[in-house]
């Protein structure tokens, strides 16, 4: 048997990989962090908000140095029809001061910064290197990775696969039972330049405060959602689109963004923004339904590679799940290497940590939410029904007296073609998962 070159190889320099490498290196292990792009974060793109509190223990007072664009102090959820908008808008000064809540940031900045902490802890970062496969021993245990460099085999006691949503390593190892396009959404986004003062005025924020807007009903016949976030002097506007629905119709992704940008409630917010960057990425959307096995002999899987992304409508989180799972993978790898047992059994500390923390607790609690949010009723029937109810509540039809709310709801439910029992069932599912 060939001796390992290092204790741990982490594949992928995103937030999961950076945290895994940081933690393993701090535990005294010999760690290599591989990144296929020219710098960590160069392949990465997301909807736009990081929730970094998981870093409190890894990087105390991370907010003093993190490359943040704006702190999210205002969150809106919009339901749109062609001509209407119902918005729930929340703002708090509390999220504009330490320890903060959500932050907008560019992933090339954020991931690069985090990987710097892994390097500072002693991990060796190797960029411009694509991993092309696993090295396994005669029993099937993972004992290293093959890279596209000359003599590029790298043997390790533990491999931590943080290779993103397409995770060819988890698939090669057979950790995904099957993959199904219906569990993925495509995120496409435009970064639009606007002067900071214009953004402050349009979104009614100041200083480094910013806005996060989630939008339902803006993606036409394709199930999905829209988003709009403020950076310092750009805004990010885009959509996430359920893959099979996108593929089954004729409208292209950029055309769906263009249509959303023309909506009367959105157009004034984005007007005049000059396109600085167009981008796209897949999102593992189905939570527990799609998650692979994350522990095997010699290997752990973290972040998007393990489908640890929470797409539950009003909660849209991924980077925090990546950072946390990476951190726990690093801890478990260190435990296993020190204990001299890097089999699945020796690495079980990873599974236990995931189960005992928000990483899997949130997913279990919200396991019905992703499907509900992308369901045809929530996507295509409820926005119009809700908007019509609100419109009639506030419409003054004198000399007609005001109608009762119950009657309006019943009439609009029937007009939308929603059966009472479906509405009740969806309400109950929503209440159970969100409550």
């Amino acid at each position, binding site marked *: 048997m060939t001796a390992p070159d290092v204790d741990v190889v982490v594949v992928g320099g995103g937030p999961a990989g950076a945290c895994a490498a940081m933690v393993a290196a701090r535990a005294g292990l010999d760690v290599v962090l591989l990144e296929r792009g020219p710098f960590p974060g160069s*392949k990465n793109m997301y909807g736009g908000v990081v929730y970094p509190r998981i870093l409190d223990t890894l990087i105390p007072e991370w907010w003093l140095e993190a490359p943040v664009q704006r702190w999210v102090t205002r969150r809106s959820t919009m339901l749109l029809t062609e001509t209407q908008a119902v918005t729930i808008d929340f703002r708090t000064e509390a999220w504009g001061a330490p320890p903060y809540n959500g932050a907008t940031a560019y992933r090339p900045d954020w991931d690069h910064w985090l990987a710097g902490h892994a390097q500072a802890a002693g991990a060796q970062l190797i960029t411009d290197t694509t991993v092309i496969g696993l090295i396994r021993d005669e029993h099937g245990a993972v004992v290293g990775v093959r890279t596209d460099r000359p003599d590029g085999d790298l043997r390790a006691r533990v491999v931590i696969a943080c290779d993103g949503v397409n995770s060819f390593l988890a698939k090669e190892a057979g950790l995904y039972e099957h993959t199904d396009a219906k569990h*993925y959404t495509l995120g496409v986004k435009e970064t639009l330049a606007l002067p900071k003062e214009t953004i402050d005025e349009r979104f009614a924020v100041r200083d480094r405060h910013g806005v996060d807007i989630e939008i339902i009903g803006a993606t036409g016949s394709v199930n999905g959602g829209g988003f709009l976030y403020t950076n310092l002097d750009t805004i990010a506007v885009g959509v996430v689109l359920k893959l099979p629905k996108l*593929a089954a119709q004729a409208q292209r992704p950029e055309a769906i963004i263009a249509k959303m940008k023309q909506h009367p409630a959105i157009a004034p917010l984005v007007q005049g923004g000059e396109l600085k960057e167009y981008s*796209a990425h897949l999102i593992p959307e189905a939570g527990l339904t799609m998650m692979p096995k994350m522990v095997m002999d010699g290997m752990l899987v973290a972040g998007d590679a393990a489908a640890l992304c929470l797409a539950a409508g009003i909660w849209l989180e991924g980077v925090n799940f990546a950072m946390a799972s990476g951190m726990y993978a690093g801890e478990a790898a260190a435990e296993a290497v020190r204990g001299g047992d890097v089999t699945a059994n020796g690495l079980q500390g990873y599974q236990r940590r995931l189960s005992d923390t928000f990483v899997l607790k949130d997913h279990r609690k919200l396991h019905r939410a992703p499907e509900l949010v992308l369901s045809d009723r929530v996507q295509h029937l409820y926005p119009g029904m809700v908007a019509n109810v609100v419109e009639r509540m506030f419409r003054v039809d004198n000399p007609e007296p005001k109608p009762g709310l119950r009657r309006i709801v019943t009439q609009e439910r029937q007009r939308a073609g929603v059966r009472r029992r479906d509405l009740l069932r969806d309400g109950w599912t929503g209440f159970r998962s969100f409550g």
Partner: protein
Amino acid sequence: MTDRTISFQERMDTAEFRVHPQAHIVVDGAVCADCSTRECVTACPANLFIPTSDGGLVFNYEQCFECGTCYMVCNREGAISWNYPEGGYGVVFRRT
């Protein structure tokens, strides 16, 4: 400030691509020839799959986001061989 309609090529040129001389994704035109649904044509965010007038399909790999949408939506076994570009090549995001 006025909103100007930009061409798709201008849109793609806002992102940086370090193009490797060799394609990382290979499309087998023979498999695609009798595909009538062509999910990739609509879904690829970079619009890299272009139908030709003779019923064929042209694929350009140069401005690929490496997202994986095409192989995920494709219903034809063996039509798309999908790999990441060689290390250091491909898309380089900046403000995403």
